[in-house]
């Protein structure tokens, strides 16, 4: 047996074996979709697509699921997941807008403006930001930022204005968005910097020769040329922000409350809960059928978004390939 393995393999056998092993990942992806969807099925069976809508009180619906017996009645499955979806969209959208602005500006700075000596120090530091584990961000958020916001930024008046509905501790939308932005910006910077560096310098030099100042030249020529890369970076960052669970669970206040823009400034201090952080909150209850199905349904929605974003990212990168620009 060992001798058979040790002898050099004929090529066709090696090719088949390697190909079969490679397909294992495909099997895993299919299994992931199938398993999660099967487990989530009861929720969709009972709620239909109105599962995505709002109107219910999420906390009490989940409580009902937690205390239900092993054979729950159909009414127990009733769930309206909109507050979670809204929280996810809200935190992702804010972080994406903020992060994209910062990432584009910072990338232009790193590649086009900064002296070599500065960028040599600065780029590794930004790369470091990308590799800090999310639980450390969460720890800093919950031990430093949340108390700071709670004690210094929220006035007594603001606290009293929503006293009857929620408590403002500092944990909420603002801290979540700030940390999420810090987490996703380096990812975008990596992609945008790479694309910026791959634009032929002569394009921009041409613009400068025509009389534009260097910054305008960057804006008019370079940034336009790498637009697909910027979109691809945004897609990747969105995927990261949607799936961030632990950090958000730690700093978002953990209330299935949908922050209301009509509340004015208080809006930014109101707690929220996202799909991913809700999974962390309720994974203990996965044994009870109804709650388990809803946890799997949240995961399925995240998985579906990840699929969709993968496809979007692929489509966005197509023009980049056409022009032989790496990105």
């Amino acid at each position, binding site marked *: 047996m060992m001798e058979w393995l040790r002898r*050099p393999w004929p*090529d066709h056998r090696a*090719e088949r074996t*390697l*190909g079969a092993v*490679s397909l294992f*990942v*495909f099997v895993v*992806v299919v*299994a*992931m979709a199938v*398993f*999660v969807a099967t487990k989530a099925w009861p929720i969709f069976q009972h709620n239909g697509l109105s599962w995505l809508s709002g109107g219910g009180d999420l906390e009490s619906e989940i409580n009902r699921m937690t205390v239900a017996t092993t054979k729950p009645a159909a009414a127990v499955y009733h769930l309206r997941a909109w507050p979670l979806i809204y929280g996810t969209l809200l935190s992702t959208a804010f972080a994406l807008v903020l992060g994209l602005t*910062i990432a584009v*500006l*910072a990338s232009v*700075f*790193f*590649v086009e*403006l900064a002296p070599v000596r500065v960028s040599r120090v600065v780029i590794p*530091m930004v*790369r*470091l*930001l990308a*590799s800090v*584990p*999310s*639980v*450390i961000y*969460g720890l*800093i958020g*919950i*031990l*430093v930022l949340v108390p700071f916001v709670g004690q210094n930024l929220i006035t007594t008046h603001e606290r009293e204005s929503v006293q009857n509905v929620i408590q403002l501790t500092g944990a909420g939308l603002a801290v979540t968005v700030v940390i999420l932005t810090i987490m996703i910006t*380096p*990812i975008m910077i*990596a992609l945008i*910097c*790479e694309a*910026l*560096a791959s*634009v032929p310098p002569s394009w921009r*030099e041409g613009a400068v020769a025509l009389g534009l*100042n*260097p910054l*305008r030249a*960057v804006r008019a020529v370079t940034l336009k040329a790498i637009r697909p890369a910027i979109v691809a970076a945004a897609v990747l960052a969105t*995927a990261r922000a949607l*799936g961030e669970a*632990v950090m958000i669970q730690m700093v978002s206040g953990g209330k299935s409350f949908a922050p209301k823009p009509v509340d004015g400034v208080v809006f930014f201090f109101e707690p929220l809960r996202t799909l*991913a952080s809700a*999974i*962390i909150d309720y*994974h203990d209850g996965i044994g009870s059928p109804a709650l388990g199905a809803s946890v799997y349904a949240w*995961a399925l929605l995240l*998985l579906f978004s*990840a*699929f969709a974003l993968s496809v979007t*990212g692929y489509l966005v990168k197509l023009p980049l390939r056409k022009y032989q620009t*790496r990105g």
Partner: protein
Amino acid sequence: MSTYSPEAQQSGSVPGAPSGRGSSGRGRRSSPMSWRWGDRVALAAAWGAGIGLCVIAAAIVLYMGYRGIQYLRPGLIFTHPRVSESGADSGGFLDPLIGTIVLTVIGIALALPLALASAVWVAEYGRPSWLARVVESSIEIVAGTPDIVIAIFGLAIFQLSLFAPFSFTSQGGGVYGNSFIAAGAMMSLLALPPVYAATRDGLQAVPGHMREAAFALGKTRITTIRRVLLPSVRSNIATGVTLGISRIIGSTAIVLILLGATLRIETQGSVPGIDLLRGTGSSLTTYIYDNSPAGEGGAPQKAYAAAFLLLVFVLLLNLLVDRIGRAQASSTGMTPIGAVV
């Protein structure tokens, strides 16, 4: 972030214009003072964004360093954690540290052969091409899937009674799906994409004449791969593995859901070695989580100490990636690949 051409760095000047200043032929800089207001604001914003991010990075490292030096004692690393009411006598984090190491070993041990086989097949064989495309897309999808979803998927898999021997089982026969094997297997999905991408990029960058030389000597394709190509992309593989390790040690959700996040390592069964793999435990990340106000909230000092240790690991891995990339660049003259986040 690794490819910066030197030309791109000198963009502030107008090249080619003759001037008496310097030998590089730099022209007169257009002074920002003469720019329009909007441009000046944009310039300031770009500087602000760049410098601001560095300040944030530096602040995080310095703050964690300060807290780490304040709270980290060597004793913490070598004592088992204990359950206690007050934070003072809750012991150290030996078990979470071992948990992190065991998970890393399992994850890499599973991911490495899988990633190498896929990368070699896609880069060197890749026929039929649609199948190669399928493999490539699958790995991209795995890379884009949030770790919380991977964790939930792992729970669905390992709670099957088929996999009961691999995980923690209750007296009544209920399968919890929590074990080092379960968590490690899902960790391998986290480590797979970076190892795959680095190896594939490395293989694609190997010049064709190396393959042709081997074929001319009468070697088969697989022998060429085994004796020529894989050795020449060793440093790419090392980069990929390092990135994979830093993803594994930073993941909290998988440990929280699939390892039970028990304070101590709880073994299951009686076979030494296997009992550990079937048992539950925790990692540094869940230790931090549990000791922060978000978890039991027992001891923020311990959380800071563990977080500092984790950050040191991540910093070291980052340095390692840089070092490997630089060594490779100087030995082959190629730009380092895979150093992108």
